[in-house]
């Protein structure tokens, strides 16, 4: 059987359309079917992860519509755009959209914090930064309690770590 559209290639895609009881059959070749693709593509792409995600994202908005939707100042993506495509523009989007992200992540993953592998190099710096925060608060405590010897030791340690971070 030849394709009804171009009449050249063999028909390999067959549709049966029933409109109010009227049945019609359509026989097309692959390329014509793709061109006329309305029926095919809608069913194939209609229920993608994107539309599912943006469904979840939009579901979020009513409660939070008071403030203007955030925008990522690094790449310029707005939260509204993100909620339409379900993809971030850059790594900083995670920071800029943070308050709105938590409910979404909880829905998708049932959790909002990473507990697995930490990269050695980048992760090493994160560890140092955490250590620094801890030392700084200890230093404050030591100063308040007028334990100056201890404070001096802490200060030296902090300097050392700060140098490591560069």
């Amino acid at each position, binding site marked *: 059987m030849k394709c009804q559209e171009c009449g050249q*290639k*063999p028909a*390999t895609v067959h549709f049966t359309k029933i409109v109010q009881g009227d049945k019609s059959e359509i026989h097309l070749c*692959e390329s014509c079917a793709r061109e006329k693709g309305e029926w095919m593509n809608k069913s*194939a792409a209609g229920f993608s*992860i994107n539309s599912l*995600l943006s469904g979840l994202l939009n579901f979020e908005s009513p409660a939070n519509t008071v403030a203007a939707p955030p925008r990522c100042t690094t*790449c310029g*993506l707005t939260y509204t755009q993100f909620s339409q*495509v*379900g*993809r*971030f*523009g*850059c*790594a900083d*989007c*995670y*920071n800029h959209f943070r308050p709105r*992200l938590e409910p*979404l*992540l909880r829905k*998708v*993953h*049932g*959790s*909002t*914090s*990473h*507990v*697995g*592998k*930490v*990269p*050695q*190099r*980048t*992760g090493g710096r*994160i560890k140092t930064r*955490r250590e620094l925060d801890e030392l700084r608060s200890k230093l404050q405590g030591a100063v308040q309690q007028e334990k100056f010897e201890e404070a001096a030791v802490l200060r030296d340690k902090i300097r050392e770590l700060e140098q490591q971070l560069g």
Partner: protein
Amino acid sequence: MSVDEFLNKSPTWMRENGPESDIVISTRVRLARNLAKYPFHMLLTDRDADSIIEELRKVLASTEMKREGNFELFRSRELSDVERQVFVEKHLISPTLAEEERRSAFILRADEIVSIMVNEEDHLRIQIILPGLQVHEAWQTASRLDDVLESKLEYAFDEKYGYLTSCPTNVGSGIRASVMMHLPGLVLTNQINRILTAISQVGLVVRGLYGEGSDATGNIFQISNQITLGQSEDEILANLKGVVKQILDHERAARNQLVRDNREVLEDRIWRSYGILAYAQKIESKEAMQRLSDVRLGIDLGTIKGVPANILKELMVLTRPAFLQKITGKELAPGERDWRRAAIIRERLRSESNLL
């Protein structure tokens, strides 16, 4: 190695066997990683894409990377559509990467166990495919390569959210582990739907042979984790492995039940399928997959002797459209493919089996 050398050989997962190879075809682990200083895929310019690929070339030239094996980088745009599709059919690159021909590239290790996709949905996707059930082995290899890459490249990583990815469904560990299983017993005994429903309730997803949106033709199912945030890689993998082991037990029980209650009917079905594959002049892809599944079951049950068990996984890839066209050396219309497919299956069965 040249593109042609890669195109003309089958990857390790197709050639070799692994643990539980009678039911588990392959195990795949994929890690999604992004580089901190570039925008994500959606906003990535052509120049960004080129410069990421150049960074990767430098990493490949390093001694640390050379220690991990022999790697080759290919720009997608340097390959023809059919050539790219062959790599998709071998499961070495994703359909998304093949479509993104302008900006993407991919790196293959000579054994085709390791592939690294560059500028897919994420800047890097490190993928390991091993034959049989080897979840932890695949993860260890992936993680080691990940360490080498991270020692040279600045990753986008957040203390709270983990590895940052283009899509929020991958954030955290960025890991997707999948196990491909051949489950004719559960399908024939009508238990498959019940089991698939149960699987989806423990945070795992089931897909067909070629991933998202593909049918489970040839009784082949891909089971993978869905959650990437809030669970460690070890937990994710242990959960997947635990569920796969249970499915294995159910599949084996179903096969025993079939042999016990319906041996003659089952053997008739197996031999019919064998006969069709051995003599048919023209066969559609879906029927071929179903018949190959029957024959593989026959081999596993000892009904068919003298045919190697690998025939299912080899032929299910060799008879895909792009592979057929590659073997034939020219473009084939869909109708022509069915004749060619039947011919290849006939030849293969003839050369491999002692039966004909």
